[in-house]
């Protein structure tokens, strides 16, 4: 064996040894399927193109826009003159997951959890939390702590004390924990496994898993608490398994084993429900292709589809449903995003945000406003903006 062969063999052996320390995420295909479902298809692209033309025309002709998206005649305009303006702009290292709480915005990125002062926009702490900050990790606040999932190697959930900005506990979980929420006295964590996933409950008093795992569909991700139920979005379609699993938080029981209105693939974005983004005004809210959908939590049926071009994510804040628009993360071509507010009383768009440059990655809210993380136009870094409600004259809405 000559020197080159020996070096090559050494390289191969050493790389094999390093790779053996890791494990390919079992939820890789479900996650990919979820992303692919969001890829624009030709028909959707044509519709989207038409919608863009309409939106552009409306933008240059405000009176036309208001006729198209204004409130129904029987319902006076509920937010006269309000619009969203950028109150602060913060460069970010990460930002694929955001949450708010304890007077701060908490941002994951590059194995760190950053604490951003909600009042000043300044970064006040960078807390090491290895393994957090990729696309599948989640972050949530509640029960006196900040919780962040570590989906990769050594999976689990970090508990961060907001008083000291330190990790105080790490709860080991099976691979691969993704989304989480804090509700009904427990931390609820979605875990992607080969085949059907599970939701595990963590008791924040003991930092231990509480109760048996709750079986849900394949590829569980986000968990939304609302209408007395936990709504788990399963990212991978499985026959006879609902895309949205409903968990009774008191008993841990999963309602409706079969799909029904919660099943289906919603591939055209206008029929069945494939995910739940938010709860508010007695409804659940999600997005389809170029629409924001309002869903009856009792029946699972879509009760309203509000046209919003490139709607991607919805949250509920300040009595309105807010749709984040633009390209999905890593879904080029990057498309500048914005945020629009929908009045649940009329199901009409009533507040328009100024466009921010770049494709959005995440959105959250606190009492002061909306926080949106987005990729810069060249996709080389991220920024976060604080969007506040203001009147046309620039006077903050709350004053």
């Amino acid at each position, binding site marked *: 064996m000559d020197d*080159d062969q020996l070096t*090559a063999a050494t390289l191969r052996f050493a790389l094999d*040894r390093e790779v053996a320390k890791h494990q390919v995420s079992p939820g890789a295909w479900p996650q990919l399927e979820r992303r692919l479902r969001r890829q624009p298809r030709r028909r959707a692209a044509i519709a989207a193109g038409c919608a863009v033309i309409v939106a552009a025309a409306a933008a240059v002709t405000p009176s036309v826009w208001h006729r198209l998206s204004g409130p129904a005649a029987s319902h006076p305009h509920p937010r006269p003159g309000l619009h969203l303006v950028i109150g602060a702009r913060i460069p970010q290292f990460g930002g694929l997951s955001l949450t708010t709480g304890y007077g701060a915005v908490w941002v994951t990125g590059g194995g760190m959890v950053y604490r951003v002062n909600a009042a000043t926009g300044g970064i006040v702490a960078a807390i090491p939390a290895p393994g957090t900050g990729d696309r599948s990790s989640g972050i949530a606040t509640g029960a006196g702590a900040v919780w962040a999932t570590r989906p990769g190697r050594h999976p689990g959930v970090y508990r961060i004390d907001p008083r000291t900005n330190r990790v105080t506990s790490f709860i080991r979980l099976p691979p691969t924990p993704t989304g989480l929420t804090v509700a009904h006295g427990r931390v609820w964590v979605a875990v992607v496994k080969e085949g059907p996933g599970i939701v595990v409950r963590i008791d924040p008093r003991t930092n231990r898993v509480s109760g048996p795992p709750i079986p849900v569909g394949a590829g569980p991700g986000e968990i939304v608490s609302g209408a007395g139920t936990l709504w788990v979005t399963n990212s991978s379609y499985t026959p006879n398994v609902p895309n949205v699993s409903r968990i009774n938080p008191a008993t841990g029981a999963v309602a409706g084993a079969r799909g029904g209105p919660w099943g289906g693939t919603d591939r055209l974005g206008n029929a069945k429900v494939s995910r739940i983004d938010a709860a508010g005004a007695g409804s659940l809210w999600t997005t389809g292709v170029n629409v924001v959908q309002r869903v009856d939590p009792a029946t699972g049926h879509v009760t309203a589809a509000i046209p919003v071009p490139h709607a991607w994510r919805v949250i509920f804040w300040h009595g309105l449903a807010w749709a984040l628009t633009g390209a999905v993360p890593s879904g080029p071509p990057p498309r500048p995003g914005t945020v629009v507010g929908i009045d649940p009383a009329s199901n009409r768009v009533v507040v328009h945000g100024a466009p921010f440059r770049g494709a959005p990655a995440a959105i959250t809210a606190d009492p002061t406003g909306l926080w949106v993380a987005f990729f810069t136009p060249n996709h080389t870094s991220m920024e976060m903006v604080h969007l506040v409600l203001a009147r046309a004259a620039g006077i903050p809405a709350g004053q």
Partner: protein
Amino acid sequence: MEPNRHDGLAQLHQRYYSELVRLAFALTGDWSLAEELGQEAFVRAWRNWGSIRRQQSAPAYLRATVINLARTSLRQRLREIRAWRDVAIPRQAEAAVSPDVLRALARLPQRKRACVVLRYYLDLSEADTAAVLGISVGTVKSQTARALQRLRPLLADSSAPSVIPLPGNEGGP
């Protein structure tokens, strides 16, 4: 999703995803990033499915995409680190300590790194490596030979710095 494209991609994913992640890991030294790049390669394959299917070139396309994405990601990471150098980050959050082999690979220029990983880790032929990288077979031979030459002392040297160099900090051509 369109069934044919979906099924085709599912088969490719089953067959090549693990290989692509290993390739990305060897190039970047970051497993989480490697998985992300593997996923992104399939998303791009999905978008360009028509041309890939015609050319029967999906594996080469996927490998080339991962290599390009790895290069872009490392550059991006460098920019981010430069952008954030004024933020006080605790010492333990600095660049990950890497094992010797990844450290040694990271010291190679990107093309040499890709050549040696494709040839000796993924066991591609010289012709296949050339096709993935869009270079001639002769260039593959010379780049691989030089890469091995540079790797030899690096793999034997355990006293080198333990931080993966980023683009711009790497060695010569």
